[in-house]
């Protein structure tokens, strides 16, 4: 029982990070209709900014992290306005290719500026907590508790934002029908830039939370990005709650696979389970069915 609970905690921790990444990817996809393959790399690039402020400028940790997230927002919005909007009229495919190009640019830039060395990044909070239960003792790191809190706060915040604010409503309207939204007087361009900004900031937040474990290097976000995409697919690619559920579920499944079945096969087995889910329900757990007029 203790072992089960302990693994569940670890799975939820991993899942929360995946969910954050999935949430950012889905948010951008839902509003602008493009899967951002540069997502993780933009988060990676942003955390190098935090690293530079922390270690070269000597700014305190909280300030470095704040600057990093603000930078990510600007980076996301600028990428949308300056690059993606230019090819928007061509096709979704063109935008997709563009994000692949951005991936290479950010990786190359990071290599040029900061070289390929691994760099360490501190936990935002340190220490572990012991919780004694009937059957034994559970150990939880404070950083993991922080990850839960941050992930939950962001998810709740986004939910409230989309449901109860005007901009949130505008984003939902744009996602549903771009042309109709335009006719209703919604500034669609601003909404696109905003979604990219918020989406990429989420990438930066996940990078900040993951960095103490992954270290900072140009490819640090790649495994998390792959899992984020997988989680998003599992949840249904066009649903924000789906991204959260899919991400958390993937984290938990992976943890249990590793603990109870095989550490070596856990990734393969987790993906197999997802494959089965998608075979049964192709639109994902919470995704909407694609309906097209014939």
């Amino acid at each position, binding site marked *: 029982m203790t072992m089960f609970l302990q693994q569940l905690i670890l799975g939820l921790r991993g899942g929360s990070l995946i969910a954050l990444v999935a949430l950012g990817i889905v948010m951008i996809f839902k509003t602008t209709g493009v899967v951002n393959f540069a997502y993780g790399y933009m988060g990676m690039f942003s955390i190098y900014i935090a690293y530079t402020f922390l270690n070269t400028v000597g700014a305190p940790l909280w300030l470095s992290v704040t600057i990093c997230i603000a930078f990510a927002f600007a980076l996301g919005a600028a990428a949308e306005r300056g690059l993606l909007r230019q090819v928007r009229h061509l096709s979704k495919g063109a935008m997709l290719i563009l994000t692949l190009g951005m991936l290479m640019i950010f990786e190359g830039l990071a290599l040029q500026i900061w070289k390929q060395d691994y760099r360490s990044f501190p936990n935002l909070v340190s220490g572990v907590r012991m919780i004694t239960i009937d059957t034994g003792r559970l150990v939880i*790191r404070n950083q993991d508790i922080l990850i839960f809190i941050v992930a939950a706060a962001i998810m709740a915040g986004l939910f409230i934002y989309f449901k109860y604010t005007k901009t949130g409503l505008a984003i939902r309207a744009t996602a549903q029908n771009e042309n109709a939204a335009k006719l209703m007087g919604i500034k669609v361009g601003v909404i696109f830039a905003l979604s990219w900004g918020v989406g990429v900031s989420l990438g930066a937040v996940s990078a900040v939370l993951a960095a103490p*474990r*992954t270290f900072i290097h140009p490819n640090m976000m790649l495994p998390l990005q792959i899992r984020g995409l997988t989680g998003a697919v599992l949840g249904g690619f066009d649903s924000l709650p789906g991204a959260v559920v899919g991400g958390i579920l993937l984290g938990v499944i992976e943890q249990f696979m590793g603990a109870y079945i095989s550490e070596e096969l856990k990734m393969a087995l987790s993906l197999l389970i997802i494959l089965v889910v998608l075979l049964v329900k192709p639109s994902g757990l919470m995704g909407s069915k694609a309906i097209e007029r014939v």
Partner: protein
Amino acid sequence: MKRVLVFLVMAIIAIGSFAFAEDGIYEDRVVIGSFQALSGPVAPIGVSMRKGMDAYFNWVNANGGVYGRKIDLIVVDDQFTPSRTVVEVRRLVEQDRVFSIVGGLGTPGILAVMDYLNDRGVPFVYQGGGSSLFAIPPKEYVFTVQPHYTTEGQIAAKYMMETLGAKRVAIVYRADDAGREGLNAMSKWLVDNGYPAALVAKLPVDPSKVTFDSEILKLLELGVDAVYLLMWIPQSPNFLLQAQEYGLDATLVGSYANPDITLIQLAGQAAEGFQALAWVAADPEDEGFLKHIEIYQETFPDELPNAFAAAGFIAAEVFTEGLRRAGENPTREKLARALETMDGWTGFITPEITYGPFDPDDNFCRTGVLQMYVMEVKNQEWTTLHDWITLE
């Protein structure tokens, strides 16, 4: 008719002399090749290893080369991907016509090209990887230098049981061929030497894994005395940081790629007391060691070579010594025979190396280093903790 005949004879002589000239050997230079990960996730290792080779060859060339020939090194970037290694190495051999391959990095890539090079008689000196498959069974033109994980796994077990006096030990290993080889060697040594129950946990970890909570909690629960950590940077400093967070106080003994300043930079205080096996003769007071730093700094001023640069340096040292022994008119065949004459040879930082005449049944005729010592992080520096350990 006579003219045609003369032309034909001359043509045959020209083609003949061209065909008989050894690939990569020219009047003024010897062209050799190497494959390294110069980009991608493993680039920090590949770039460093290349720097070590460059530094040594620059020094040799600045001092007149070998019998007046400069050593010209072509390094290709295979990104640690075996499919690329195959293409790039074939290009080195068939288009660039290199004399020898020196210091290739990465077990998967090495395994992918090893037989090709051996079949064509291209000497392959120094493999940046620890698989015993390079040396066992021996291959006539493949000369290993680094100890392999079968050697290391046994030495680690011997050290933990006999020197540390551990009762309950564990191994945390990369779930790949290298890791499994170390695991098998360790298990076998423990069984053969009367400690069949000492190994209480065998924990495989994915080579890309960054969270070790489950493994550390398991070790805490089992109460182990010592853990053999068969992984390297960046996983090992990460493991140390997490072990410190959870308060794991077992002695951690790392694999030989760990004694490097990068580990201390990444793990900080969590690295204190971490021990690791080592095979590069790196005594800071030794003349050869100081000379190696001097040589390195001639090419890279103010930089200190890390462990991977040292590996590249050793690859270059061993090859150059072989080339010197091969004489004024070297051929691939002569190089292979010359390397076989090495008997306890040591370089500036290369520890004792012995090869022997090629014998398919002699598992030691192509095995390089067979002994290792132990280093420890003390006050944020690597220090020597225990002298050379040899297997009986």
